[in-house]
């Protein structure tokens, strides 16, 4: 039987049986990995590799990836069905690097890399042998990603890369990095960019973990000092990196439902109800309003995510900018939710015994900042919606027509006048 014809009910039955026979039950597992904030030990990653290999051998890794890439060639809905069935079981947890590997990175490789590259890397990615990270943002280029300044210079049939990267999720345990570098400084900003696959153990590449706002360290910064990379490590065409970035950003902003979760959230904001009970405020009208508001937001965001995914899948002319809605919703609601927990907890979120850990309400409050700025700030999402969905005109800009080298030079000497 042609496997691509598996209907959803059959698939669900098969997946359920396979999961029961091959995975372990795990309390509280909801099929969602929200791990960008947590540390991962070598043992955690080794365990994740074992589980990923098991999924791969069973035919449940890369369910919606093409068969010729080592996937199962089924639909995103099949993938969703598997996640629903697997809720409550232990799944491979590669932390944040896992999310980017199987989401934006694997998807952009399939869409843009040449056949040899795809065959070299995709099966190894789907089987858990290769975990990737994004060498993407830089100290001087975050929301303005096409403004990256890391340079790649041709040297015979090789490239030499020098620069600094930052905010790479899980780079300290990743095997490969997908690195955006400038290969033509005389071209305009978006025309001189190229993507390279960089082994994270390459000579001249150093990784440092960043101590974050809450004291944890999941993100890294990297310094590339004359790192030598072969020509066949280019992903997508030379100087054609912005096309790849467009694909990546769509998945980064949640088209793949990374931000949505697998299951419709029906329980009344369980974390906030527990918190309200803990501080004895569950009967206070204001607290109840906060709880219900958060529940409504969780529900709304889940269905907004589904709506966006449906739009991206069914529309005859896909408009990737609609993915910005999902990202903006997360960026707005997460901060709101963090604040709701603070307001419910009151002093308990602000002071605690020196012998205790920082409470979840405080930790969650601090970490809620992340989604307002990660993968493009809220303002970037608003620009995308405003300009590419609503069709509003752009602001005048200084960096669209001249060589990027001149943009950097002129910005330093700008006297504030607009002519």
């Amino acid at each position, binding site marked *: 039987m042609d496997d691509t014809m598996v209907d959803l009910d059959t698939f669900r039955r098969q997946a359920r049986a396979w999961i029961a026979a091959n995975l372990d039950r795990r309390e509280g597992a909801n099929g969602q990995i929200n791990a960008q904030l947590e540390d991962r030990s070598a043992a955690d990653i080794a365990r994740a590799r074992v589980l990923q290999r098991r999924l791969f051998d069973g035919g449940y890794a890369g369910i919606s990836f093409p068969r010729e890439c080592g996937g199962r060639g089924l639909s995103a809905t099949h993938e969703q069905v598997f996640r629903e069935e697997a809720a409550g079981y232990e799944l491979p947890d590669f932390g944040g690097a896992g999310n980017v590997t199987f989401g934006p990175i694997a998807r952009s490789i399939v869409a843009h890399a040449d056949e040899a590259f795809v065959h070299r890397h995709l099966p190894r990615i789907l089987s858990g042998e290769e975990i990737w990270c994004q060498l993407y943002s830089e100290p001087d280029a975050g929301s303005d990603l096409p403004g990256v300044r890391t340079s790649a210079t041709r040297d015979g049939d090789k490239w030499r890369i020098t620069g600094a990267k930052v905010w790479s999720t899980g780079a300290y345990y990743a095997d490969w990095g997908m690195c955006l570098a400038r290969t033509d400084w005389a071209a305009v900003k978006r025309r001189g960019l190229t993507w390279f696959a960089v082994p994270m153990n390459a000579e001249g590449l150093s990784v440092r973990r960043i101590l974050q706002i809450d004291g944890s360290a999941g993100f890294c910064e990297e310094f590339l000092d004359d790192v030598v990379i072969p020509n066949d490590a280019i992903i997508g065409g030379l100087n054609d990196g912005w096309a790849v970035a467009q694909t990546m950003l769509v998945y980064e902003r949640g088209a793949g439902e990374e931000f949505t979760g697998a299951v419709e959230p029906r329980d009344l904001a369980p974390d906030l109800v527990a918190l309200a009970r803990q501080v004895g405020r569950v009967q206070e009208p204001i607290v109840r309003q906060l709880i219900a508001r958060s529940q409504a937001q969780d*529900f709304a965001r889940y269905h907004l995510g589904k709506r966006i995914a449906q739009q991206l899948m069914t529309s005859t002319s896909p408009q990737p900018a609609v993915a910005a809605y999902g990202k903006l919703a997360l960026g707005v609601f997460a901060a709101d939710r963090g604040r709701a927990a603070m307001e419910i907890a009151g002093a308990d979120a602000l002071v605690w015994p020196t012998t205790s850990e920082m409470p979840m309400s405080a930790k969650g409050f601090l970490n809620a900042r992340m989604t307002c700025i990660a993968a493009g700030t809220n303002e970037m999402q608003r*620009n995308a919606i405003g300009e590419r969905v609503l069709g509003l005109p752009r602001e005048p800009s200084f960096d669209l027509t001249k060589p990027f080298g001149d943009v950097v030079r002129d910005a330093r000497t700008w006297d504030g006048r607009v002519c």
Partner: protein
Amino acid sequence: MTLVIAESLTPDQRLLQDVSAQFIAETMTLSKVREQTNVRTALAAEYRRRAADLGWFSLLVPDEHGGGRLSDNSVLDACLVAYQRGRLLQPGAFVATNVVARAVAAGGSEQQRHATLPGLLSGEVAAAWVAAPSPGAVEACRNDDTYRLSGSVRFVEDPGPDGIVLLTANTPDGPTQFLLSTDMPGLRIETADSLDISRRFVEIHCTDTKVPMAAVLGRPGAGAAPAAEQLALACVLLCAESVGAMDYELATTVQYAKDRVAFGRPIGSFQAIKHLLADTSLGLETAKACVVAAAAHLDAADDYAQQAASIAKAVVGANGQDLAQNCFQVFGGIGFTWEHDQHLYLRRLSSDAALYGDPVWHREYLCQLGGI
């Protein structure tokens, strides 16, 4: 963009949506809405009958009771109509008429169905629906074969002359639902002026009003559960109307931001305006997602239907009010004039937000449904 992604609609649904939109555009434009040509006039009756011919009041009633369901997702079908109605702020008790028709079909006696449904489905009469959280309350006392009703409710959409009222009253045995007609003795219906000028609201007064047992819908004292179901349906249909109004209002505002020039460029190119409109658009898309999700829960008749409806009502109510304010902000002075249509939307969305329970009420209700 529309309420539902166009590609996911069936041909029947698309047809219903398109003929409804066309009927509205030809019959009841914004200028007619503004002139209140639809208030208790011959035109209103004609509008209702023609709307009934399109199936507007039959969608939620099974065929065996004279209805004309289009699909298994009949709540969504009705939402498609409601959305088109909302876009041009259509008057008339579309929501209540559908809620009451379905309630009578589901829980009415044979006699009640025969007496009520033909008129409602054909558009001859419209209905009013009254239950918590409508402001006011009616108490009912039973005396042998008769109930006596006392009390008042207000902020009820006008069912027009010869209308039907489904009213939930408190009795010592529990909430009881009564099917009344507006012209029955002892029932006083007073029209009110309202912030929303696209519709007409009434107050209903009962003064020791004698009502026969035959007017009880369902079992005496057992009205709480059907009233809650009716509330969920009323909320979702009303939300679909609100979302239609929001969609139209935002599109008008975005166009204005592209056309209006200040400081040498279209004001929509300024990030201050662009970001406001992007946030507003997010609020609208979120509202649509909630309405469609709640409609699906109602169509599945699952155990989260009431929660989903209340979530939709809370989200759409709040986002609709935000949208009206944000759009006003973009229009500036022109939006403060009577001539401009902006205030019609501001008025309608403010009224929608409170009708059948405001966001605060539905959040509290959500907590209770959630077991706290």
